[in-house]
């Protein structure tokens, strides 16, 4: 029997598979497809201080081996999440969940994390720094080491739960940003978020996405994700949660060898709702073929 368990910054997981934020809602839609308790954990929809409708539609565009989304962090706000979503979730998910937190100012992040810190169901706070900093000229927090570190410190100050900073790949030097987060006290790094992309509707002569640009994800971005996971895992001493384009057990193994302790699956859930279940079932078989007895042995084996 292959041992699939991993320890992610103190959170014991039966396996490394984590549906990525924004592609799994609060788990409700997937429990009709399979028992989601088979998952290592899951990261719920990006939650902000206040409720948000998000961007105008169309919010979705198709690409080769991927898609663009411009949902714009639609969510019911942290109070609603704590009052309704988490209690309901308890009925169909009995493991610790990962809380994905977004914000538009450092105070936003701290506010939301302080509330989520009290929730026993939350195992890890995953702080998405890809949002535009409204006090910082609109560039996202994740584009500068200083801003990312500032968010990290603010969040660490209000919680005792492990804090993962989820980084944006749209940067020149991912390592410097990851290191700044580590130095500011982050317990782990999650990467990558979506890449900034755009498609044009050549019939209408307009961008497909109402918001012009959006977040590009899916198998197309896998090589960029593997590269960044590798670079960050080599440079930092905190665990990395890998994400970006994963859709098979082999992809999971590849990302773990590159340095990931756990692996998130995003867009693939939308097109194949069973993908995480299939991966969890295929992992022991693929591991056996490769002579892997304990999956945690392969984390970062690449030189």
């Amino acid at each position: 029997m292959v041992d699939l368990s991993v320890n992610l910054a103190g959170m014991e997981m039966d396996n490394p598979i984590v549906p990525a934020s924004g592609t799994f809602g609060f788990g409700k839609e997937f429990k009709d497809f399979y028992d989601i308790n088979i998952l290592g954990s899951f990261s719920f929809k990006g939650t902000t201080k206040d409720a948000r409708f998000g961007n105008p539609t169309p919010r979705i565009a198709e690409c080769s081996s991927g898609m663009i989304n411009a949902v714009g962090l639609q969510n019911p706000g942290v109070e609603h999440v704590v009052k309704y979503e988490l209690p309901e979730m308890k009925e169909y998910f009995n493991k610790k969940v990962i809380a994905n937190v977004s914000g538009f100012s450092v105070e936003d992040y701290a506010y939301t994390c302080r509330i989520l810190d009290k929730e026993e169901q939350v195992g890890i706070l995953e702080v998405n720094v890809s949002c535009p900093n409204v006090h910082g000229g609109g560039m996202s927090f994740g584009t500068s080491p200083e801003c990312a570190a500032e968010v990290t410190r603010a969040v660490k100050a209000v919680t005792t739960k492990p804090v993962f900073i989820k980084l944006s790949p749209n940067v020149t030097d991912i390592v410097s940003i990851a290191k700044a987060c580590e130095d500011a006290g982050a317990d782990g790094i999650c990467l990558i978020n979506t890449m900034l992309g755009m498609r044009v509707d050549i019939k209408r002569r307009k961008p497909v996405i109402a918001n012009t640009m959006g977040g590009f994800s899916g198998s197309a971005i896998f090589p960029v994700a593997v590269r960044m996971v590798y670079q960050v895992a080599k440079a930092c001493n905190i665990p990395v949660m890998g994400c970006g384009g994963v859709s098979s057990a082999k992809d999971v193994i590849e990302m773990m060898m590159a340095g990931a302790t756990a692996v998130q699956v995003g867009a693939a859930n939308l097109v194949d709702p069973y993908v995480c279940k299939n991966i969890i079932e295929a992992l022991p078989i693929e591991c056996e073929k490769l002579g892997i007895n304990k999956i945690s042995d392969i984390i970062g084996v690449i030189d």
Partner: protein
Amino acid sequence: MYKQGLFEVLSNDKIAKDVFKMVLKGDTQYITAPGQFVNIKLDGKFLRRPISVCDCEDDKLTIIYKVVGEGTEQMSAVETGSTLDILTGLGNGYDITKSKKPLLIGGGVGVPPMYLLCKKLVENGQNPTVILGFNTEDEIFYEEEFRLLGADVRVTTVDGSYGTKGFVTDAFPDEYDYFYTCGPMPMFRAIEAKAVTSGQYSFEERMGCGFGACMGCSCKTKYGSKRICKDGPVLVREEIIW
């Protein structure tokens, strides 16, 4: 409840200009209401393609689709005997408990969901009047099929090449106590201006998942934000913000 399943293509034929009818065989038990849709995986395409249920009887599913882009182009070339990966049971569908003398209005590829709806209404003895609107004669399909269900069928064409010349609103009956519609936005606006009763509209939106997980298809309604794929595609007249 929704479900992923493999469906065998029994036939795939052109029935009007750029419009194809595909009959599939598979597990249809999750298709529970007219107006629901299915989401079809195509080789080499990342996202699935949402298509309304046109008819569903035992293990047979009928869809009608128009070739408008790469995905539907590819669908039109799918051969009989091949297999498609389809999510079924998606969307709320029409609520058929609302009326005694319903009016059904389908425009273009908004016609297909009207068929199963019409069938159910006829079965319930609800006596539907059906208006099918097209631009021109060579786009028309399914007039005869609706007639065979026993409905009062009116066809309109914008250029007058067949049936009543004009828009669907030019063929409105004098009597109806509720309406159901699916079709393009300009048609919806015309109906909104003319209709005197309550009714249900079926909307389209570009979708990520089709089953409520990604928030790709949200729209604002008077009762808050709704997902076209899960809380819709059918919205009632009273909640819609135009």
